[in-house]
C-alpha cells in the first residue's frame, strides 16, 4: 500500500513541477485534472482511512468526478472561450519557476523534518508533497498574469491544503465535513471565478490581470 | 506735612531744571543761552493761548494731554524726594507707577495717531517701540532693588535705614544700574542720543513730532507732564547715588536738589557731546541698558548668596 501511496504522491509532485514549467493553458488544465484525481485518491490509500464505509466510497467517487472532470472541464471551456492558449509574459520566468519548485520541495522536506509531530510511517512524503503543492499554488497566483492561471493556482492551493488535512488529521472527528467544505468551496468558487473570468474577457478583451490596475491609491 | 511740602516743591521746580540743560548746552556751544526760567515763560505763554484742533481729531486727542499730565503728576506723588517720606506709598507702588506712566504713553500715542498725520504716526510707532524695551529694562532694575532690600515701593527703596544707595551693601552694583537708568532716562524722555528735542526735521523726531498738533493749554499740559516725568527719572538717579535721608529734612532736600541738578547737567553734557543715534541703533542702545541692569541682577545673585 505504501508504495501505491508514494507513487501517487510522486505523480502529484511531478504535476506540480510540470504546472510550474508549463506555458500552455490547455496543458495546464490537463495537469490539474490529473492532480485532482490523484489528490482525491490519496486518502483511500492511507492506513487510517482504510476502513471506509460505503458512504465514504461514494463520496470519494464524487470527489474524483468533480476534481478530475467537472472542474477541469469548466476550466477547459473557459480556456476555449477566451481563446488564449498560452501565458505569454509570466511575471516570473519558467526556468525560475521550475527552480522555485525544486527549492520548495527541499524546504518542505526541511520543514517536515523540523515539525515536532509524530507522523505515521510514510506520511513524510505526503506532507512534503502537500506543502510543495500549497506553495506552488500560491506561487502560480503570484507569478502569472492570466486570470485563469490564478484560478489554477488557487486550485493547487486547495489541493495542498486538502493534502495537509489528510496527512495530519484523523478522519474520525471530521465526519467528511472537511472534504465536503473543500468541495463546495472549490465548486462554487471556481464557478464564480469562471463567471467573472468570462466577464473579464468580455470587458477587457483579455484575461490579463495586469490590465486590472484601475483600483489603486 | 513734610511730604506735602516736598511734593509741592517738586511740582514747582519741575520746569526749572530743563532750563539747566539748555544753559549747559549753550555753555558748550559758547553761547549765552536762554534764561533759566525759560520753561516757566513757555508754560505761561501756552496757557494763555487758545486752541487749534485738527478736523481729523476726536475726543481722544483732547484726552491725551490730560492723561499724560495726570500720570506724570501721579508718579511724583509717590516719590520720596530726598528721602522724605512721600505723600503716598504702599508695597507694590512702583509697579503701579510704571504702569500708570504706561497709560500716559498709551494716550500720548493714540492722541498722536488721532491727527492722521503720517509724521505723528511715525513718532508714535517709535515711542511705542522704545517704550516696550525701556519697560523691560526698568523692571529688571526693580528685580535688583527687590533683591537688595525686599521692598516694592519707591518709599521703601529710598527711606529708612535699609535705603538703597551707593553706600548700602552691594551698592557697587548700583553703579551699573545708575548708568542703565540714566540711559533709560534719556530714552524715555526723548533726549539725545535717542531723540533730539531741538531737531527741526519731523522725520527724525519721536516725542516732538507727536505733539505737533497740540496747541495752547493742551501743549502746556504735555510739556509740564514731560518735565515732571524727567524730574521723576532724574530724582530716581539722584537717589541711587547717595542716601540723603540721613541728613535733616531741609539739608537733605537741598543736597538732593543739588544732585538732581547735577543729573540735569549730565544730561546737558551728554546732549552737547553726543550726536543722535541712527534710528535703527536705538533699540540696541536701550538693550544695552537692559543688559547692564540684567548683569547687575546676575551679579547680585553671586553677592547675596
Amino acid at each position, binding site marked *: 500500500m505504501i508504495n501505491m501511496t508514494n507513487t501517487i504522491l510522486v505523480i502529484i509532485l511531478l504535476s506540480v513541477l510540470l504546472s510550474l514549467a508549463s506555458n500552455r493553458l490547455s496543458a495546464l488544465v490537463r495537469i490539474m485534472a490529473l492532480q485532482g484525481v490523484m489528490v482525491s485518491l490519496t486518502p483511500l490509500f492511507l492506513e487510517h482511512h482504510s476502513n471506509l464505509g460505503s458512504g465514504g466510497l461514494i463520496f470519494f467517487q464524487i470527489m474524483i468526478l468533480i476534481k478530475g472532470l467537472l472542474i477541469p472541464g469548466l476550466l477547459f471551456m473557459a480556456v476555449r472561450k477566451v481563446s488564449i492558449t498560452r501565458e505569454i509574459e509570466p511575471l516570473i520566468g519558467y526556468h525560475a519557476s521550475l527552480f522555485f519548485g525544486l527549492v520548495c520541495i527541499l524546504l518542505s522536506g526541511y520543514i517536515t523534518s523540523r515539525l515536532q509531530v509524530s507522523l505515521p510511517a510514510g506520511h513524510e512524503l505526503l506532507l512534503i508533497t502537500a506543502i510543495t503543492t500549497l506553495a506552488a499554488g500560491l506561487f502560480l497566483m*503570484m*507569478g502569472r*498574469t492570466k486570470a485563469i492561471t490564478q484560478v489554477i493556482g488557487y486550485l493547487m492551493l486547495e489541493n495542498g491544503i486538502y493534502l495537509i488535512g489528510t496527512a495530519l488529521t484523523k478522519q474520525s472527528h471530521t465526519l467528511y465535513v472537511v472534504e465536503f467544505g473543500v468541495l463546495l468551496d472549490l465548486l462554487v468558487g471556481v464557478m464564480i471565478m469562471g463567471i467573472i473570468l468570462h466577464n473579464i474577457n468580455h470587458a477587457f478583451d483579455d484575461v490579463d*490581470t495586469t490590465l486590472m*490596475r*484601475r483600483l*489603486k*491609491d | 506735612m513734610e511730604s506735602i511740602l516736598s511734593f509741592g516743591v517738586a511740582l514747582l521746580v519741575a520746569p526749572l531744571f530743563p532750563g539747566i540743560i539748555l544753559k549747559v548746552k549753550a555753555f558748550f556751544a559758547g553761547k549765552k543761552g536762554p534764561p533759566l526760567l525759560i520753561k516757566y515763560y513757555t508754560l505761561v505763554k501756552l496757557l494763555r*493761548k*487758545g*486752541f*487749534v*484742533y*485738527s*478736523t*481729523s*481729531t*476726536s475726543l*481722544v486727542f483732547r484726552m491725551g494731554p490730560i492723561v499724560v499730565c*495726570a500720570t506724570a503728576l*501721579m508718579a511724583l*506723588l509717590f516719590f520720596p524726594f530726598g528721602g522724605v517720606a512721600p505723600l*503716598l506709598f504702599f*508695597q*507694590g*507702588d512702583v*509697579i*503701579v507707577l510704571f*504702569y*500708570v506712566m*504706561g*497709560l500716559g504713553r*498709551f494716550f500720548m*500715542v*493714540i492722541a498722536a*495717531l*488721532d*491727527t*492722521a*498725520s*503720517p*509724521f505723528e504716526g*511715525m513718532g508714535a*510707532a517709535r515711542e*511705542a*517701540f522704545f*517704550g*516696550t*524695551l525701556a*519697560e*523691560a529694562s*526698568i*523692571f*529688571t532694575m*526693580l528685580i535688583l532693588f527687590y533683591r537688595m532690600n525686599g521692598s*516694592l515701593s519707591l518709599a521703601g527703596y529710598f527711606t529708612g535705614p535699609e535705603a538703597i544707595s551707593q553706600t548700602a551693601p552691594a551698592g557697587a552694583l548700583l553703579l551699573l544700574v545708575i548708568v542703565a537708568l540714566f540711559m533709560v532716562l534719556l530714552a524715555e524722555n526723548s533726549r539725545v542720543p535717542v531723540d533730539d528735542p531741538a531737531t527741526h526735521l519731523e522725520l527724525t523726531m519721536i516725542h516732538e513730532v507727536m505733539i505737533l498738533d497740540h496747541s495752547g*493749554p*493742551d501743549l502746556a499740559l504735555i510739556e509740564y507732564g514731560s518735565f515732571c516725568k524727567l524730574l521723576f527719572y532724574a530724582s530716581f538717579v539722584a537717589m541711587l547715588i547717595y542716601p540723603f535721608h540721613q541728613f535733616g529734612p531741609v539739608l537733605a532736600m537741598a543736597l538732593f536738589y543739588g544732585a538732581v541738578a547735577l543729573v540735569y547737567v549730565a544730561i546737558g553734557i551728554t546732549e552737547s557731546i553726543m550726536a543722535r543715534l541712527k534710528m535703527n541703533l536705538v*533699540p540696541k542702545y536701550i538693550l544695552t541698558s537692559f543688559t547692564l541692569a540684567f548683569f547687575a541682577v546676575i551679579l547680585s545673585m553671586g553677592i547675596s*548668596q
Partner: protein
Amino acid sequence: MNYFFAALGLVLTGGVAALIFHRQFLFAKGFSLLLTVAGCALGLASLALPSDGPAADWSLTWLQIFPLSCSVDSLSAFFLVPIFLICPLAAVYNIGYQDDAGASLKTMVGVFFLNLLLVAMALVVVAGNLLTLLLAWEVMSLSSFFLVLYDFKKETTRKAAYLYLVFSQAGVLLISAAFAIIFGSTGSFLFAGAATLPADIKLLVFFLACAGFGSKAGVFPLHIWLPHAHPAAPSHISAVLSGVMIKMGIYGIVRTYLLLGSQDPLIGQAVLVLGMASGVLGVLYALGKHDIKRLLAYHSVENIGIIMIGLGLGMLGATLGNPVMAGFGFAGGLLHVFNHSIFKSLLFMGAGAVVKATGLLHVDDLGGLIKQMPVTGRSFIAGSVSISGLPPGNGFISEFLIYFAAFHGLSETGANLILVMLAIISLAVIGGLAAACFTKVVGIVFLGEPRHEELRSVGEAGSWMSLPMLLLASFCLVIGVFPEPFINAVFRTVAQMVPALTVDHVLVATVGTNLAWASRLLLLMVLLIMAVRKAFSLRKEVARGPTWGCGFTRPTVRMQYSGTSYALSIVSFYRPFARIRTIWSGIDTIFPKQAAYASRVDDIAEIALHRFLVSPVAFVLGKLRWIQHGHIQLYIGYIIGTIAVLLLIFFL
C-alpha cells in the same frame, strides 16, 4: 444642584426652541434669548444658594457601568461665573449682530450650538469624575467646531474649522491618555484616585493633560488653531470662544494640578515657561497681524500666557513653601481668567461691530471710525486699556497680583530664581508690546481719517450690540476701580482650592485697598487736570483746521501711517521668533507707475508644525500609498509575507 441643572435646562431649551421655531425669526430669537438670559441668571443665582453652591453633588450611572457625577466646588464656581456672564451678553449682542431674517435657519443653528456650548462648558466645569469631564469636553469641542464652521462658504473658515477639529481631537485624546493612566492605576473613574499615583507617573499625567488642555487653551506652541478659528467664527461666537471657552483649558490644567497634588517643582516650572513663551510670542504675533480678529485671537494666546505665568508662579510657590508667591500667583492667574473673559469678549464684540458696519477686517483699510461709531469706539478703547494691563482697567489688577507674586518669588534660589526673574521681565515685555499693539488697533482703526470714503457713512451699531459692549466696558472699569471684592473673592477661591496655603489676610486686604486707591487716585488726577484745563480754556477761541502736514500741502488719507509700518520695526526686533516675509514689486523704471509692497509675519510654531511634522508625515505617508498599487499578485504576496513573518516570529 437642582437649580443649576434647571438653569442648564432653560438654556438648552432656548437652543432647541430656536431650532424648532426658526421659521418665525423674531419670535425664535426673542424666545431663545429670553430663556438663555433667564437660565444664565438662574445659574449665577444658583452659585450663591447653599444647596447648589460649592460642595453640591449629583451622580448617575450611565450605560450600566459608567459613573457620571457633577459637583460644584469653589474652583468650578469661579469658572462658572464668566460662563454665565459672558454667554448671555453674547446672545444679546447676537440679536443685533445677525439680523438677516433670510438666513434664519442658519442663525438658529448657530444659536442652538452656542447654547449647547454654554451647557457643555458648564458641565466641564462641574464634572465630578474623569468620564464626565471627557464627555462634556467632547460635547464642548463638537459644538464649538460647528460654531467655527458657521460661515462655511468661505474656504478659510473651513480650513480653520478643520484645523480646530484636528487639534481638539488630538487634545482630547491626550487628555484621555492622561486620565487613562489615572484609571489604569486606580481602576476607577473617580478624580480622587489621582492623588495616589507614584510621583513620576503624576508628572507624566500632568504633562499629558497639560498638552491636551493646553491645546484648547491656546498655549504656545499648541495654539496654532486658535488664530485661525477665532477670526473665522462670527464675532459674538469669537467672543465666547476667546473669552470663555479657551479658559476651560486653563480650568483643566488647574483641576489636574489640584487632583494630582504633586509637589514636583518641574510642574510649576514648565507651566511658567509655557506661559512666558505664549505671552511674549502671542503678543508679538498679534503685533504682526493686521486682521483685527486674528490680532485679537493672538492676544488670547498672550493672555493665556499671562494666566499661565500666574498659575506657574502659584504652583512653584506652593512647592517651594512660599505662601505669598503661591497665593498671589494663583489669585492673579484666576482673576486674569475672569478679567480676560470680560475685555476680550468686549474687544471681539467691538471688532464685530466694525466688521458688520464696514465689512472690512484689515486694519489698514479702516480709520476714523470713532466719529461714526462713538459708543463702539469708546468701549473698544476701554477694552484696549484693560487688555494692555494699564490702570485703571481690570487687566492691571490681575497683572499686578502676578507681579506681586513674582517679586516675592525673588527670594528663591537657583533655577527657580532665574525663572521668576524671566517671568517678571516677560510680563514687562508683554505689557509694553500689548500696549503697542492696541495703540496700533485703536489708532489705525478708530482714530485718524477714514481710509475709504464709504467709511464716512457707516452708522453706529444698534443698541442690542452697544448694550453688551457698554456693560462689559463698565465691568472693566468697575473691577479696575473697585477691585477689593474681586480680589477677596478670588483669594477665597484660592484658599478653598489649596487649603494648605495660608495667605496673610491682612496683606491681601491691604493690597486690594491700595490698588483701589491707586486707581481712584489716577481717576481723581485726571479729573483734576481736566478741571484745570477747563479753567484755562474758558473764553478761549477754538480754531479748527487740517492737520499740520509738516509742509506737505496735498495730504491724502492714504498717507496716514499704516498698521503694518507701525508694527514692523517692533516685530523685526524679535526677528528669529517672528518670520517676516516681504513682497515688494521693485522699481525698475524711472517713473514707476505702480509699486506694491506687502509684508506678513509668520508664526514660528506654524512654520515648525509644517516643516517638521506635517510635511515629513505627509511625505512618508505619500510614499507609503504605494502599498495599494493594484497588482493582485503582490496583494497575495503580502499575505504570504505576513505568514512568513509571523512564522519566523513564532519559531524564533
